[in-house]
């Protein structure tokens, strides 16, 4: 085995990388570290007797752990957000954008509003069986009401227990709509992604 395998410089490099990748699933993180480790060892094995300086050169050519971790997050997380509809993951990815400027911040706030609206429909659907007189679709001269506490809203409730599936559906529409909107923005502002990378590199 290569004498450099347990070099403290290399160990601390990969410890830093693993640490930077802490938001990836464990299995994925281990795989990344293993792959990059193989790369470093291969590079060092080309040198007959690698010195500390050689180690430093090889690690430097790799790029810093921060830079690599950032690339992984950009490639994998943004990609995943483009295909999955998990609000949690979307928001987490978006939150990274918010740190890059006002556009990201606005998208993040709008997304949060969209998901909150979706979530509140789910919540009213859940509560409907317990508060049948307070939650529903109430039509009166004042317009349309969904819920009011402690007094029920004015007007007649038109859906009854069918409110539950309807609210779940509407909540789902809001969640999906928000996700699709984010995807659209993400695709449209692919530039943004590069900007993040560019700024990261400049920092």
């Amino acid at each position, binding site marked *: *085995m*290569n004498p450099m395998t347990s070099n403290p410089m290399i160990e601390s490099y990969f410890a830093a990388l693993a640490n930077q990748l802490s938001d990836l699933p464990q299995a994925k993180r281990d795989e*990344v570290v*293993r*792959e*990059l*480790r*193989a*790369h470093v*060892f*291969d*590079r060092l*094995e080309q040198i007959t007797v690698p010195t500390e300086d050689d180690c430093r050169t090889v690690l430097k*050519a*790799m*790029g810093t752990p921060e*830079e*690599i971790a950032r*690339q*992984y997050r*950009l*490639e*994998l997380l943004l*990609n*995943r957000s483009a295909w999955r509809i998990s609000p949690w993951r979307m928001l987490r990815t978006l939150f990274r954008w*918010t*740190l*890059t*400027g006002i556009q990201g*911040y606005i998208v993040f706030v709008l997304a949060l509003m969209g998901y909150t609206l979706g979530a509140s429909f789910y919540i009213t659907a859940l509560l409907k069986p317990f508060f049948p007189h307070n939650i529903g679709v109430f039509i009166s001269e004042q317009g349309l009401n969904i819920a009011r506490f402690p007094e029920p809203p004015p007007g007649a409730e038109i859906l009854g227990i069918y409110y539950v599936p309807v609210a779940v559906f509407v909540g789902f529409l809001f969640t999906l709509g928000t996700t699709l909107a984010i995807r659209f923005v993400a695709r449209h502002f692919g530039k943004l992604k*590069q*900007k993040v*990378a*560019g*700024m990261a*590199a*400049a*920092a």
Partner: protein
Amino acid sequence: MALLRKEPKSEPTEKWEAQLRKGCLELAILACLWDQRLYGLEILRGLEQNSNLVLAEGTVYPILARLKEDGLLQSEWVEADAGHPRKYYWLTAAGRQKIVSMAQFWNSFAANLNSLLKPVLNGKGRA
């Protein structure tokens, strides 16, 4: 912190080059794998031979990871004499299709742009 940082306005050329390089890197990686299975370092060697596409070697791996997630590549750990296994990559059927269409696009794209650039490079043209 970064919230207030403004977009860097300087070095627009450098930024353009970085973006161009990044966009082409994906194409180049897929092209390297056209008729062989390679591991990361071999792909890098292939890239080094005929381009200055790669700045930091480590950045090839995140791209490989995404290409795999996109279903364009497949990978497998293979034991080697080196004492440690290496992760080999190869093109899937979808990857094969993708690189063909990318190559065709690149070809006509580059041809059009080259003819556009001809007068610029020849230093002739408008007064």
